[in-house]
């Protein structure tokens, strides 16, 4: 044991830590570039977000250091207990949460605010890893699969109740982890198919979509024509999938939008994907209701974000020269739309480098996972990679108009203590577990 402890710091994964340091540094610099004014006399201004981010970074590193010093068995041993406490806190938050922009996902003590939903990811990951790595868990059994799904989705439901949709969606990423651990391939296809269908139904014109779906079905049918000839079940599956898609997009959605949903609900749905409500769903006002035609705020955000990123060009406008990001044109600049600062100031080259850093980090984490003897660590590593991936993909996609605007932060870069701290803890626990990869942890 003594030899292990002596070389503990040497056993930490240098690449992950290096990428982590790169990302948090980029984050602080990006927030600085958004907030810095030429009139500022000093760099150290406590009322600025970048200084607070630096302080949070300090806390994160401190917590990380403690985690490194903790025994690696602690995380698996206390995984369920921590998860239970976390669920309790989430339940409390629903009732005791501070109202921030309509969501009650924050716990407030004095001026200190804290979002349990962000931190719950850590404990959910640990709990899921623990459950799936238990010897008695046979993940081929349907019952265990449901338990796994329950562990992943319970926090999501609680967070949904706190009206923080974006954060709740993150928990669906655990299905990717469970897929790695043995869920059937169909899950992946059905999942992607459903997401694609919902988005395309809202985004694309109905007739066009019907043609596309039919075309796609015929294409698939042509490719697998031999299978179709041989198996009647395959024919049924293909045709029923086509039927479901058509019914969903052509009949169910219009019916629900026209007859079930209220005007404000329709508006909210379309504002989430950042486009205008189509005319056919535009409900007329009652004569007395003289509500102002309000510009869709998400649409505005995405437009401003696209302007900022699009105006960056190939090489960007240069550091501290971002006219859009510096002058508050993009709302939520420091948090959800921080990527604009990179896109505007460093252009395509800078954005690409950032994306490559992220992908490197995630692939490295998968690599760490796969080199483990311990299932617990491997599953945990996949959890970390998938959470990062979801945040990264959705956040950047929404700034460039590829995904609906849901309030999700860019890991390590977005301003925000809860976010930075929880991602740091995720990474440091992983690094700690990886350091003990020779030891079998259950």
């Amino acid at each position: 044991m003594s030899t292990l402890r002596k070389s503990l710091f040497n056993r930490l994964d240098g690449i992950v830590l290096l990428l982590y340091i790169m990302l948090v540094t980029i984050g602080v610099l990006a927030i600085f570039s958004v907030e810095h004014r030429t009139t500022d006399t000093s760099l150290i201004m406590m009322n600025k977000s970048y200084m607070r981010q630096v302080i949070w970074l300090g806390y994160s590193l401190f917590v990380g250091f403690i985690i490194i010093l903790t025994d690696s068995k602690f995380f698996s041993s206390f995984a369920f207990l921590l998860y239970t406490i976390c669920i309790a806190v989430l339940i409390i938050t629903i009732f005791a949460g501070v109202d921030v922009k309509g969501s009650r996902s924050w716990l407030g003590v004095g001026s200190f605010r804290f979002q349990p939903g962000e931190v719950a990811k850590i404990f959910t990951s640990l709990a899921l890893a623990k459950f799936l790595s238990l010897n008695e868990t046979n993940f081929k059994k349907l019952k265990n699969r449901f338990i796994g799904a329950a562990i992943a989705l319970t926090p999501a439901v609680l967070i949904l109740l706190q009206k923080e949709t974006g954060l709740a969606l993150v928990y669906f990423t655990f299905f990717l982890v469970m897929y790695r651990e043995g869920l059937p391939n169909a899950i992946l296809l059905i999942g992607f198919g459903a997401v694609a269908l919902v988005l395309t139904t809202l985004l694309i014109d109905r007739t066009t979509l019907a043609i596309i779906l039919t075309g796609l079905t015929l294409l698939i049918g042509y490719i697998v024509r031999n299978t179709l000839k041989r198996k009647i079940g395959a024919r049924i599956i293909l045709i029923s999938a086509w039927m479901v898609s058509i019914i969903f997009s052509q009949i169910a959605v219009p019916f629900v939008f026209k007859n079930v949903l209220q005007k404000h609900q329709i508006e909210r749905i379309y504002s989430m994907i950042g486009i205008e409500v189509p005319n056919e769903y535009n409900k007329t006002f009652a004569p007395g209701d003289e509500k102002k035609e309000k510009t869709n705020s998400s649409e505005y955000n995405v437009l401003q974000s696209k302007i900022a990123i699009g105006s960056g060009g190939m090489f960007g406008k240069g550091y501290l020269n971002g006219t859009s990001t510096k002058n508050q044109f993009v709302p939520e600049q420091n948090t959800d739309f921080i990527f604009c600062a990179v896109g505007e100031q460093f252009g395509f080259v800078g954005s690409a480098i950032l994306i490559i850093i992220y992908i490197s980090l995630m692939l490295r984490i998968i690599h760490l996972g796969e080199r483990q003897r311990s299932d617990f660590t491997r599953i945990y590593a996949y959890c970390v990679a998938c959470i990062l991936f979801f945040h990264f993909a959705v956040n950047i996609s929404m700034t460039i108009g590829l995904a609906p605007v849901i309030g999700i932060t860019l890991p390590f870069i977005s301003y925000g203590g809860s976010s930075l701290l929880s991602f740091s803890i995720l990474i440091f626990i992983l690094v700690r577990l990886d350091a003990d990869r020779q030891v079998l942890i259950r």
Partner: protein
Amino acid sequence: MSLTANPRRYVISIIFIGVAIIMLLRLFFLQNFEPKYKILANDIAIYKKVVYPPRGVIIDRKGRTLLSNTPIYDLMITPKNVPKTLDTNELCASLNIDKATYESILGKVLVRNLDVRQSPFMELLNEEQTARFQENAYKFPGFELIERNIRIYEKPIAGLMLGYIGEVSPEMLKKPRYATYRQGDYTGLSGLELQYEEVLRGQRGVHYLERDKFNRPRDPYRGGELDSQEISGKQLELYLDMELQEYAEKLMANKIGSIVAIDPKTGGILAMVSSPTYDPNLLRGKARSRNYAKLYREATRPLFNRATQAMYPPGSTIKPFTGLVALNVGAITPNYGYPCHGGYGGCSRKIACEHSDAGHAANFRAALAHSCNSYFCHIFRMTVDNNEGQTVKQGLQLWHDYYTSFAYGRQTGIDIPYEGKGLVPDSNLYNKMYNRSWNSCTIVFVGMGQGELLLTPLQMANGMCIIANKGYYYTPHFVKSIGKNEKDTLLRKYQEKHVVLNIPDTTFTIVQQAMQDVVDHGTAGGAKIEGITVCAKTGTAENKAVVNGEVIKMQNHSMFVAFAPRENPRIAIAVAIENSGYGATWAAPIASLVMEKYLKDSVTYKRKAVEDKMMNAKLINRYVYTIDSVIRLRDQMVYEAKVERKRKKDSINNAETNALYNKWINYKLKSKKGIN
């Protein structure tokens, strides 16, 4: 699930990489092939600010400020950028105007200008309006405050000479001179402000600033590398002495006339008064057009610069020059005398002379000292009739050449616009007037400064410079240096010495001696200054006014010209006071006081009584108002007749158009009925 490679690892990795590639592709096209975002980003974030530099300051010879600036704000509007949802009530409240005014101003702006161009909405906001607008500026996109400097005249003096500024009119903008101006810019409209517009104006600067979402300008865009810096207008230093000018204006209070004082050594104008004067601060800012109209209507015509534009018969003040030419062409010698007994009978009409005692015109000196009309009429005739074989026309031409070289009958070229030429008659004029049958007797009055000869006070003062300098002058001018540079190209022409037709110094000495006698024991005793040799000549100019086609003889103009000290001339002066009497009574003491003030810095206590008398004298005749109203009435009638003619013509045209229109309307109505 062991250490062997799991294929799902690669599925997940490929999902990660695939999504990243989609994002990279999207970014690549967004950032490199959609230039509209670049344009949009510049549109929303860059703000072009035009900075008007302060206009050049005008200071006097001792560095005292005559004309300077103070900042004021104009509210500009770019109608296209004004959103339809603008809270006009709030805007009106912060500007303290009502909604009808807002609408009418907006209408005017739209009529005058395209809606994409920035144009003035409200000008010269007061402090309260500025403060209240600035507080809420972010609520009013499309509106913008622009700082400007307004002119401040330190003392209410020299208004006509300094001039004033005003907005460039649409007509002016069409001229090439105003090519660099934009609507709403200010430009000099008269006086030095107009003459030196280019140097006073400076150069407008354009600053590109970043602005934020609330339309508040912030940091310079790209560190200000695209900015053009504004260049301040240059300072004008004048020869004018502020104190002297003020003193001279006080002396001329309640009189119609003018004073021009020039430094003979440089041609610099020390004081220039055109009375009655006005407070130049009336002609700035919002009140300009109203006050201008008021001043324009005044009978005494304060906007008329009598010093450079009014043309008077010089009267006896021309006699030194009559003598000078006569002596130089050899018509007379200094010892030449004329037996005057109270009149000149050389021609058919007798010309009266003030003096009748024998020997008052025994020689040139005595004749000038006593201002003998007979003597100077006679020597003028001798000048033009001089030498046998020379016709009177040739003689007059020679005389005309001399006078032209004295800058009489032509513009001196002073650096304020609209200078009068005066009139020096030549044979062409007389041929026209007298149908070619004239001789030296016909034009004899010119010798004593009457008849057709007309001079501006500026020319008279300049004439004094020539005698003081013994034969040369510098073009009279106000500006000593531009931006502390005395060698500015604009000033080059004023530093050129103009030498008059070759007249030897001795001849000038004789004339100077005679002019000294005028003060020492002649007509201008009241112009004496203790300890200073003054050379002068009084004048009493007969004049007539034409009212309703009738020629009325008016009270004489009181004229006086002088320079001092004789040994080392430092000031040359001409004073003209309209319709007030003898030159010795009013013009001479006033000129003398101004000279004393300049040469000695103050007027001796002994002359206090004279000073008071001059300052308090009210010499504006009642009939000035009568004549003025008659003239204005006539102008009015002429104008109304013109308008009436136009109206008749228009109404005939309109009637034709209306008839056509009615026909069309009826036709339309009928056809509509048919359908129903």
